[in-house]
């Protein structure tokens, strides 16, 4: 397990989304991220959580990790429809794919426990632990 990782499991209900956003906010504050980077991470997370159809399990897990040059976010388990939406042609609409690829650098889906798991990775300027 990553030394700097936070795992949160919440019921798939809108009223708990704020809890997940606050956890992302707390991590962003600890890492001294800018307001805009925090906004991007929170919006990416909300974009997935708020599509009720994707949340299949009794809980949704959000795993945050701090990498040398980025913040990672893994969300799951999710319905397979998410994968097909991410793989579909972009077109002119604001698809989930367009949205996520604007907000973060890496978007990937992998099969995992209970369904698909979405991996997002956002490159952020991180100070060394000593500087923080």
């Amino acid at each position, binding site marked *: 397990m990553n030394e700097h990782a936070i795992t949160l499991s919440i019921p798939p209900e809108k009223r708990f989304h*704020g809890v997940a*956003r606050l956890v992302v*906010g*707390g991590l962003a504050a600890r890492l001294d991220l800018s307001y805009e980077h925090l906004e991007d991470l929170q919006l990416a997370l909300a974009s997935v959580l708020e599509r009720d159809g994707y949340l299949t399990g009794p809980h949704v897990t959000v795993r945050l990790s701090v990498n040398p040059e980025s913040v990672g976010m893994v969300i799951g388990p999710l319905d397979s429809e998410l994968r097909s939406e991410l793989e579909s042609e972009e077109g002119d*609409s*604001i698809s989930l794919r367009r949205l996520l690829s604007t907000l973060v650098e890496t978007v990937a889906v992998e099969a995992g426990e209970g369904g698909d798991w979405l991996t997002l990775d956002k490159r952020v300027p991180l100070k060394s632990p000593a500087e923080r």
Partner: protein
Amino acid sequence: MSVPPEKTDRELLRRYHERGDLEARERLIEQYLPLVRSLARRYSYRGEQHEDLVQVGCIGLIKAIDRFDIERGVELTTYATPNIIGEIKRHFRDKGWSVRVPRGLQELNVRLSHLLEQLTVQLERSPTIAELAKAADVEEEEVLEALESGQAYATLSLSAPSGGGDESSDLDPLESLGEIEHEYEVSEDRAVLAPGLATLDERERRILHLRFFEGLTQSQIAQQVGISQMHVSRLIRRSLEKLREEIATEQPLNRRAS
């Protein structure tokens, strides 16, 4: 010979203020009810009953009558109008925030919105949470809570038609909206034709286009559109929510059709 209304007003106000004549106060309220109705109509929002706004406006009128200083030489209409509008705006503000959000957090959210602008200019980059906390003289957690409370803020709709035309911008309790640059040709934006986007207004479409098609940051959009970063953030979230709702409505129909 008819008596000019201002003379009648002054007489009624004098009777009420000097002799405590409540009947005179009632007559003044009745006389100014058409003004309240007319102002309420300008603020009749989607989902907000006109009569409810008239009731709210009446509170403003009564306050104006009660506080009116007959020695000041201004007309009651002049004094009452901002009082009535103020009461209606307060109503929207109070209703717009989730009841669970304490006023202190609402106020901090407003302060943070201004500080965000100032610090972005001063630092020439987006500030960190720590920098916002320091500038606001609060703890980082309070900043996060206040920012989160901004998510709970749900005005009836900042972009909903107000029925009165040009004053809808006044209804944002957090800040004034900037002017929309109308030279932006939405018709040339192909994204407008995409499903769901038709439900958004011109400014919402423009902001989404700048963010997700042009790749501009929130602060760059804020500068272009002439509104604050936090307002851009709220509009993006609200627009995406509208799109999600629209898509959710369309999907079952499409599935049935296919």
